[in-house]
């Protein structure tokens, strides 16, 4: 692989300086706001249902909910073009819904049924879609960063202008392979948008207790990768930053890091009572920064929709979630013979 840049010069220094000035974020049009509202609310209601079904024993093992972080994936998705790839870790339900994967198949995977995206063999953390270019769904913290850099590599290798969107959390940001990947991505100018979903806690460890540098947008500095901090609770800000980062990549300038400051309302997983943070902290976030409420207020204020219209949307979403939940319970458990399939692919002679 040949780097296009002369090895001894760093010509990007000026262009790559972190943007510190608070620029005005372009506000969504009414149509964009409505679309974002639907999608974010859909994710939230889906996740609430998943939490409820977990409590009923219908979903087993680990279940990491995305509630509170909806604006990140919904905003980033506005920058995704046909052929771009998306990959994330194990808090992945929201990403799959945002990638337009079938909610019924996602929920049926959570219940471990044959109608699930991975035929019930993957579970909450392992779902994929070739059709939607969603590459998982990975349970080893940080692994998706190297894998995602490989997706970006494949775009570069094929010479197309697609971008890989690689999501990981503030916890994964401390893994060694993240920096191995950053180095190669910048060295080979790979089209990778690294989206760090900083929800402030790696499981129960607050970022200030785990990270020597808590400004995660600076984590690419020693590799000359530009980075930016974004209000991850504001879907407009997320969208704007993601689009600029994607353009940077599509222009052949290499990777870009976006630190999305966000917050998860629920515990790390269903078994986490979240004793490491004050209830007030969570409530304050919900009341003052909720990503869905922000859009809702804007829609009402601009009279793009009225309360009756919102109720209609709410009813549609509840129907979608109910359908998914029903399907996930009605779908059968995988046939026992499935135990022995999909291990290796038969070699065609």
């Amino acid at each position, binding site marked *: 692989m040949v780097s296009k840049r002369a090895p001894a010069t760093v010509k990007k220094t000026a262009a790559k300086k972190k943007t510190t000035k608070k620029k005005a974020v372009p506000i969504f049009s009414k149509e964009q706001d409505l679309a974002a509202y639907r999608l974010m609310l859909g994710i939230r209601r889906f996740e609430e249902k998943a939490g409820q079904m977990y409590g009923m024993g219908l979903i087993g093992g680990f279940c990491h909910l995305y509630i509170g972080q909806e604006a990140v994936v919904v905003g980033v998705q506005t920058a995704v073009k046909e052929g771009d790839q998306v990959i994330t870790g194990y808090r992945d339900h929201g990403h799959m819904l945002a990638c337009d994967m079938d909610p019924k198949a996602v929920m049926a995977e959570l219940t471990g049924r044959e109608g699930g995206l*991975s035929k019930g063999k993957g579970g909450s953390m392992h779902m994929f879609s070739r059709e939607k270019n969603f590459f998982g769904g990975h349970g080893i913290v940080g*692994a998706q960063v*190297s894998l995602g850099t*490989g997706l970006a*590599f494949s775009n570069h290798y094929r010479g197309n202008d697609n971008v890989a969107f690689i999501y990981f959390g503030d916890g994964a940001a401390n893994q060694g392979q993240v920096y*191995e990947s950053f180095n190669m991505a910048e060295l080979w100018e790979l089209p990778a948008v690294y989206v760090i979903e900083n929800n402030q806690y790696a499981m129960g460890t607050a970022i200030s207790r785990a990270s020597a540098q808590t400004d995660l947008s600076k984590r690419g500095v020693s590799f000359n990768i530009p980075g930016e901090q974004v209000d991850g609770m504001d879907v407009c800000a997320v969208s704007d930053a993601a689009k600029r980062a994607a353009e940077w990549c599509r222009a052949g300038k290499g990777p870009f890091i976006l630190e999305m400051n966000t917050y998860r309302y629920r515990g790390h997983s269903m078994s986490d009572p979240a004793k490491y943070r004050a209830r007030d902290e969570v409530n304050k976030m919900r009341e003052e920064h909720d990503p869905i409420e922000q859009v809702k207020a804007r829609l009402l204020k601009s009279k793009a929709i009225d309360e009756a219209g919102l109720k209609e949307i709410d009813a549609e979403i509840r129907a979608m979630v109910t359908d998914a939940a029903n399907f996930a319970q009605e779908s059968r458990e995988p046939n026992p013979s499935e135990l022995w399939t999909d291990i290796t692919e038969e070699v065609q002679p």
Partner: protein
Amino acid sequence: MSIQILMPALSPTMEEGTLAKWYVKEGDEVRSGDIIADIETDKATMEFEAVDEGVVGQLLVPEGTEGVLVNQPIAVILADGEDASAHVNVAATPSETVETVSNPETVAVVVPSAPSANLVSDPNIPDGTTMISITVREALRDAMAEEMRTDENIFVMGEEVAEYHGAYKVTQGLLEEFGPRRVVDTPITEHGFAGLASGAALTGLKPIVEFMTFNFAMQAIDHIINSAAKMRYMSGGQMSCPIVFRGPNGPASRVGAQHSQDYSSWYAQIPGLKVVAPYSAADAKGLLKAAIRDPNPVVFLENEILYGKSFEVPDVDDWVLPIGKASVLRGGTDVTIVSFSQGLTYALEAASKLAEEGIEAEVIDLRSLRPLDTETIITSVMKTNRLVVVEETWPICGIASEIAAQVQEKAFDYLDAPIMRVSGKDVPMPYAANLEKLALPTATEVVAAVHSVTYR
């Protein structure tokens, strides 16, 4: 006193080389650091620098001489005031030369060349096929080059694979033919590039990842197992990860504990992987081509000591062998000896010694460790009723342990003696030459194991 310049070893496994060129002639003055000769092995050509200073009194080996043994005197440097005429015959006679190199360590690492006369004919090779003699190193390179010519999606990635031509020169010439887009030098970043390549494979590219040695693949093993091997299953069959992880595995020579581990059984345990460990050049070529074409992740375990060994390879257009089939290297009726990779060096040497005693051993080369061809082993055991398994890895939970378990489950009634394992010793690899020899299996140990199962 005059000083003898000895043929240098360019690597721990080098035994001989070609003195390609002299840069000095008799009567020249040399200073420390001057380049005095080019030394060539099958792997590389290297410049040889003078350490001692003085006047070249005599060149003992003419340039262009092949097969010059390591430590053989090649030139004489005169001390101040000495006259060349006084040293005309120094170290030049054959007897003296032999004496110089016949230290026990050097002799001990000389591995007997691969037997050809005893080989059972390979059913994969059509009658009348021309055979050419090439090294395992060349066979591996040819396999990659041939596949890369036919499929644009194949690329090679790893440390020093491009401009350096591979740390062990396996990727020699690939950069020149395929360019830097498809022959990718990486930073020293095993975890990162194994993950990157696995991710690229998910999109349909077919990476060949070279680990400089499999010792360093421990940094990357999470991606080999958790990402590549499990991808297909946990996606319900949606995702494929067609990738080859290859490189030298197992002990080389005198490189100590952290560079001398055999990982065969580690990878052979993992569902979702295929694991190949060839011995001969023909198998190396045919199986690497199959591995590259395979839609599954394949761990391809090579051996540094075998890289330089020459074997007969069928001169056919597209030599591909099926993964998962063992081969019978030598027919016999008294005992079955199963091994793979460098272990076969001990097994075949032992079989030759046993034949002299009238014990006919059947020697099976597993070639693939996953899937494991137990059928070939059991068919042989049903004939010989005795089994010895030879491997360089540690004895606990090794390939031999697995074979012993399967054979007693499936052919217990055919066994006339306990199954014996000849393995590496259960210790980290020591550096000292004598201790290293003790840590590795030997043909003598294989012979002893056969004696114990044949009650002779």
